[in-house]
């Protein structure tokens, strides 16, 4: 008859208790969040202050402290979808080959004559040789430089393609090398964006790769997408170049070894620099905002040992010569070298404001982005709007819940009350699971929960209706209840699996809020099946055992 083994009863109870415990912190959102932030800060090595202690004390350590993440549409913040300009990197890669190519061709100078790098599209390296009859020799020599690619997909492929025509040798990256470079570039971009966002000290940012060349960045609590863009949209490539001429015409033609760049503060001024930098920002180990001797905002930096050595050697050999500090293809400053700088640290002064100096030092600390980014999508949601949505969602959920409760009890009496208890546990379980997996609650997600509240009773309704039917024919109420659950199961399973399929598809293909909706919908289906089949049944069985009613009314 109606029997549930003790261990099953305990497991059902246990799941409910764990669910409720996991959901509980969400009732005390503010204190728990402050507690978690304080714990995070300590873990990152912050020194304990009275404020941190006070925040820690707001929520006991022993209790669960997982919270449902609030999505940007609820908390406010900025959302950016960036596309990394992968092809930007090709130029740098080819520049890196140039010294080797030059040295190799110098080795076969008798056959190829003099060599000269030509201006070319960014994804090609073109070299003109003075003896066209030596072209094949040159091509073969350069081809020998090609390295096999070390990657899973590029086995057996070379990193460069070399072609020759007339007196020009053209070097391009092979497709396999491009693919490997693309992947590396994106990984590196992700890492650097993460570091920059972390440096800015925001909470729980989402930084995800999307597709081949995209990065999704969501930062709660930040004032605007614009602010975020300034932080992560800057390449922050810092280089130190020897100056050839401090003032040339803006449209000066340059050959492959030179580069003409504008002054950051004075747009009318253009400087001619050597293309190969003496040192780059890659050699930086630290950077801090500060002030120069005249009390103007400045940025200090420190090189690693190899950077310090290169910088020291160059400055001691070129005292009295100008050199340029270049940030993202603009000359920040071009001081004259007064003395050898061997200590490995220096200072950049320019027309900075304090904020600019601060931001520049963050950027330099985090490192340069390997490629530029364009922004395909940007959204700013103000915190007030988010709070309004939370309030509205809360009110709607409570009203929906109340209406469903009244409706269920009016229709099914005591059994309706059991279903109502199950519904309450159901909502708690949804929040518990969301907190456990660190799921994000979005505005459509709240709608998903409200919809679940409406639909959650469906499984119970199916069962109760079935019990009503069985009561007409079955012998005794216990048998009717048992048959009701048994016979309704097939419909419950089919109905919920199909909806679950939709949730999975929504999650796979959706993004942002749609995904949030899919998560709550999917979790809601699992929990509502659990509560409808197990929890209400347990309640009914316990009630039945105590009362032993001869007849029941459903």
């Amino acid at each position, binding site marked *: 008859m109606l029997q549930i083994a003790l261990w099953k009863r305990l497991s059902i109870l246990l799941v409910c208790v764990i669910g409720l415990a996991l959901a509980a912190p969400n009732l005390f959102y503010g204190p728990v969040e402050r507690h978690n932030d304080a714990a995070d800060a300590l873990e990152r090595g912050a020194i304990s202050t009275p404020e941190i202690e006070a925040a820690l004390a707001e929520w006991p350590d022993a209790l669960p402290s997982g919270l449902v993440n609030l999505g940007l549409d609820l908390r406010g913040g900025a959302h950016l979808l960036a596309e990394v300009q992968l092809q930007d990197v090709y130029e740098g890669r080819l520049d890196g080959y140039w010294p080797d190519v030059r040295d190799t061709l110098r080795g076969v100078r008798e056959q190829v004559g003099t060599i000269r790098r030509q201006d070319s599209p960014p994804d090609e390296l073109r070299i003109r040789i003075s003896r066209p009859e030596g072209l094949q020799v040159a091509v073969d020599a350069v081809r020998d430089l090609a390295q096999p690619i070390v990657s899973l997909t590029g086995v057996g492929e070379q990193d460069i393609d070399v072609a020759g025509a007339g007196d020009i040798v053209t070097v391009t990256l092979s497709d396999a090398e491009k693919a490997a470079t693309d992947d590396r570039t994106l990984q590196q971009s992700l890492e650097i964006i993460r570091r920059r966002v972390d440096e800015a000290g925001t909470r729980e940012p989402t930084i995800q790769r999307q597709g081949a060349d995209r990065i999704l960045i969501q930062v709660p609590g930040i004032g605007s997408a*614009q602010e975020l863009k300034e932080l992560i949209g800057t390449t922050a490539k810092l280089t130190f170049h020897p100056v050839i001429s401090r003032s040339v015409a803006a449209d000066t033609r340059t050959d492959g070894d030179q580069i003409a760049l504008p002054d950051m503060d004075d747009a009318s001024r253009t400087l001619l620099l050597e293309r190969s930098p003496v040192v780059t920002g890659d050699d930086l180990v630290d950077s801090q905002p500060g002030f120069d001797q005249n009390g103007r905002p400045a940025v200090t930096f420190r090189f690693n040992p190899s950077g310090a050595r290169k910088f020291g050697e160059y400055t001691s050999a070129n005292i009295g010569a100008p050199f340029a500090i270049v940030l993202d293809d603009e000359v920040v400053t071009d001081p004259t070298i007064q003395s050898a700088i061997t200590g490995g640290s220096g200072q950049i002064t320019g027309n900075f404001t304090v904020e600019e100096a601060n931001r520049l030092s963050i950027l330099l600390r985090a490192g340069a982005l390997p490629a530029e980014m364009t922004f395909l999508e940007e959204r700013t949601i103000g915190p007030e*709007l988010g709070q309004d949505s939370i309030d*509205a969602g809360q009110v709607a959920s409570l009203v*929906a819940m109340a209406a469903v409760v009244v409706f269920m009890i009016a229709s099914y009496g005591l059994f309706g009350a059991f279903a109502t208890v199950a519904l309450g546990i159901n909502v708690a379980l949804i929040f518990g699971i969301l907190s456990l997996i660190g799921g994000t609650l979005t505005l459509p997600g709240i*709608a998903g929960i409200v*919809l679940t509240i409406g639909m959650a009773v469906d499984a119970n309704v199916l069962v109760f209706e079935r019990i009503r039917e069985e009561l007409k024919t079955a012998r005794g109420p216990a048998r009717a209840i048992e048959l009701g659950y048994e016979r309704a199961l*097939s419909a419950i399973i089919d109905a919920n699996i199909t909806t679950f399929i939709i949730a999975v598809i929504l999650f796979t293909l959706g993004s942002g809020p749609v995904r949030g909706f899919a998560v709550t919908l999917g979790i809601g289906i699992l929990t509502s099946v659990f509560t409808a089949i197990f929890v209400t049944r347990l309640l009914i069985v316990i009630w039945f055992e105590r009362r032993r009613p001869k007849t029941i009314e459903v």
Partner: protein
Amino acid sequence: MRLRLVPQDTNWDFMRYRKFTFGASVVAMVGAIAIWLIVGLNFGIDFLGGTTIRTESTASVDVAAYRAALEPLGLGDVTITEVFDPTFEAGRNVAQVRIQAQEGAESVTPEVIAGVEAALQTVDPSITFPSVESVGPKVSGELITTALLAVGASLVAILFYIWLRFEWQFSVGAIAALVHDVVLTIGVFSLLQIRFDLATIAAILTIIGYSINDTVVIFDRLRENLIKFKKTPLIDIMNKSVNETLSRTLMTSGTTLLALVALLVLGGDVIRGFVFAIFWGVIVGTYSSVYVAKNVVLMLGVDRDPKKPSDAGTQFANIDA
């Protein structure tokens, strides 16, 4: 006294009106498609690209003055709509400014947004901008593709699942009902010019989920009755199945609609379109389970060979019974 939405035992002849209801469904679908083609959908920036700026102010919204202030910026097509909502307290005036995707720019430049904000501030110094959203044309194109893919994938997955669990006739019936629901939803969206964006797609998928839920419950009962009453004509079994599940159908739709009404009235204007789509879908979905899905199954017929132990369903039909 228990609340009962329907009498305890009903024996209504639902299928009697099948020709009329089916005809009505076909007419409604043709009408929806016609409206869709003629009026078109009011696509949001998710699908068209562009920028929307939400404004909020203590002063009342003066659309003409906003428009006049934005005119000199030369932004092309600018739509300004005032947002009304019963949940707004007095002195809270909200408007939505929509700017089309700008030529040549991947997403709207900060200068444009700053310009718009400054221009509106000259009209109304107390104005604030609670949200600014901007989508580039490249992404919006992809979002359309993904959305269509999602709807298509859901249909295929459901087709496959129902075919496994029932028979192919049921699959076709279920899909016909889903297509019916989706088309009618799109029709309502173009008729009322409600903004159609990514959230709407999520809503349509939810409708598919809800509608199939409803359909499956009736199919399930139908399958059971087909096994029980081997000689009864299909149409009578269908009537019986609908009558037997009627109470449940109305209860579930009823509670779901109650919850949705709460959200529709109190959930704020930001998700109203989304909730409305689901609300509409629940109504259409309930209707289509009876009058579209089963009609189609009836027209196709079900193989009923009394010699086989189980008439309806395939080898996967009884795994949980």
